[in-house]
């Protein structure tokens, strides 16, 4: 009885209770995030396959192998191409739509709801829909294109069209996401700026470039970096539609990691090495953002 009371007294000091509040999350984060992260760095230095045959420390051999692996360079190149086109397209379309829909009217609200619909849908379902809609044999879109004179549009199945199609599908699915963030940003700009410039006789276009754009700089920068980080991890849309093909033309880094680790050759060590290289790439891009974010919050 006395013990219980002591425990109650102990735990009801805020400084002690805090640890109990933290406990579940701390255990989960340590076991399922911190340990795997450290393990990833270690495994990248090992030869290791899924059957644990011939496991052993190989130093930087995996990294050296990556630098001479043309499939790795191909995957990196495809990922960079994806980022370079997907991110700007998503932000420009998101921005133009957000600018058009920032004021509150019934039409604008309805349009916003519609544009957000694909964000809610899974990439698996979206990929299935687009694959069949764009199928060169039975698809509705190739049929319509043929009617207006564009023949044999191969989309996901063409070596040169597969990546642009994956990019277009991703922009279609995600621009509503960027739009929503930017609408909040635009609504946060004081109306007085616009009123003052209206008195000066500035038109909508001029207002967009001289008020909206400069004052939205931080939000845009935030979107740019988070979209870039997300896009560097591109996997779902490729996995559901092209599986990296045709001829590895859409194989991205994460797709390559997954295939190397969980399909033939089940090479976990090498897959870890590529994931560590991806981590370095992502940290390099995201550090400036986090630095800024934490400085504002602290």
């Amino acid at each position, binding site marked *: 009885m006395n013990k219980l009371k002591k425990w*109650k007294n102990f735990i009801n000091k805020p400084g002690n209770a805090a*640890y109990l*509040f933290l406990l579940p999350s701390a255990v989960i984060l340590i076991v399922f995030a911190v340990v795997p992260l450290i393990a990833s760095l270690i495994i990248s230095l090992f030869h290791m396959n899924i059957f644990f045959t011939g496991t052993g420390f190989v130093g930087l051999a995996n990294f050296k192998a990556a630098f001479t692996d043309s499939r790795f360079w191909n995957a990196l190149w495809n990922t960079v191409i994806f980022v370079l086109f997907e991110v700007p397209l998503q932000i420009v379309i998101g921005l133009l739509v957000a600018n058009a829909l920032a004021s509150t009217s019934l039409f604008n609200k309805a349009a916003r709801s519609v544009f*957000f*619909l694909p964000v809610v849908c*899974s*990439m698996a379902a979206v990929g299935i829909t687009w694959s069949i809609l764009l199928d060169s044999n039975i698809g509705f879109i190739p049929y319509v294109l043929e009617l207006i004179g564009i023949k044999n549009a191969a989309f996901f199945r063409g070596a040169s069209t597969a990546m642009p199609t994956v990019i277009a599908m991703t922009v279609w699915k995600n621009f509503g*996401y960027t739009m929503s963030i930017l609408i909040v940003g635009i609504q946060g700009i004081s109306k007085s700026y616009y009123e003052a410039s209206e008195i000066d006789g500035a038109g909508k276009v001029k207002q967009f470039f001289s008020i909206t754009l400069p004052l939205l700089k931080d939000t845009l920068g935030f979107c740019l970096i988070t979209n870039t980080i997300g896009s560097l991890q591109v996997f779902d849309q490729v996995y559901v539609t092209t599986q990296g093909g045709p001829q590895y033309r859409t194989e991205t880094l994460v797709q390559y990691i997954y295939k190397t680790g969980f399909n033939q050759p089940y090479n976990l060590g090498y897959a870890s090495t590529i994931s560590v290289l991806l981590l370095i790439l992502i940290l390099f891009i995201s550090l400036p953002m986090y630095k800024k974010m934490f400085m504002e919050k602290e």
Partner: protein
Amino acid sequence: MKKTKSASDTLLSVIKYILLTFIMIIVLFPLIWLAISAFKMEKEIISFPPSVLGTKYTLKSFERIFSSIPMAKYIKNTVIFALGSTFLSVMFDSMTGYAFARLNFKGKHILFILVLLTMMVPFQVMMIPLFLESNALGLLDTYIGLILPKATSAFGIFMMRSYFASLPKELEEAGRIDGLSEFGIYWKIMFPLVIPGVLTLTIFHLMNNWNDLLYPLMMTSSTQMRTLSAGLALFVGDHATTYYGPQLAGALLSVLPLLIIYIFFQKYFITSVTTSGMKE
């Protein structure tokens, strides 16, 4: 102030509405096409020339998807995984966020930095060790194994911390004077005040978990344990042997639950995106 619309601004707003309507058609068309085609007969889906509307509607594709893959199992697994991990994560995230926002304890700063560090590391980087670890712990292909690693998130902790931090300071003092325990203060006084944040985080987790592909793909190997996203993706990968109709019926069934929730809780979907900005 007099508002005189110049001719160019009027022209601009005409162009604006035309463009917006055009984009709306592009966004809606695949979704509507999906919803209609899932009810078409297989021979109408593959007929030439293709038609959007078709002539006869049937549930045949739905019957086929349930008979060719364990669709009912997938739905059950997705519900258990998504609801289980969302519920636990919202609870644990908010408890931890509360501790960081309102309580003073030793090592607070360093622990918070550790949380933020895990937020910066993408899942793909930990994927392989996580798989090995789950395998060693016997968690692969189990509900616990699917749910536990997703039962908290650094982002959720970060977000709940800022919700709790915005509450006035006198609240805990009042609770302490009333003789409430520390957990009582959290649960009875503070938690009800951050319900909007809790709902936003719930939607955030629910959407991510329901739609997640790579994670369940990796953590489940038996067909009986797959989620909707993973199961359908693998089903489609088998192009040669499958009909088109069942793929569409499966896709429609998999997006429907979230779309229905979206209709009722739209506000929270949008805030979950705008407060996050972080993609998982």
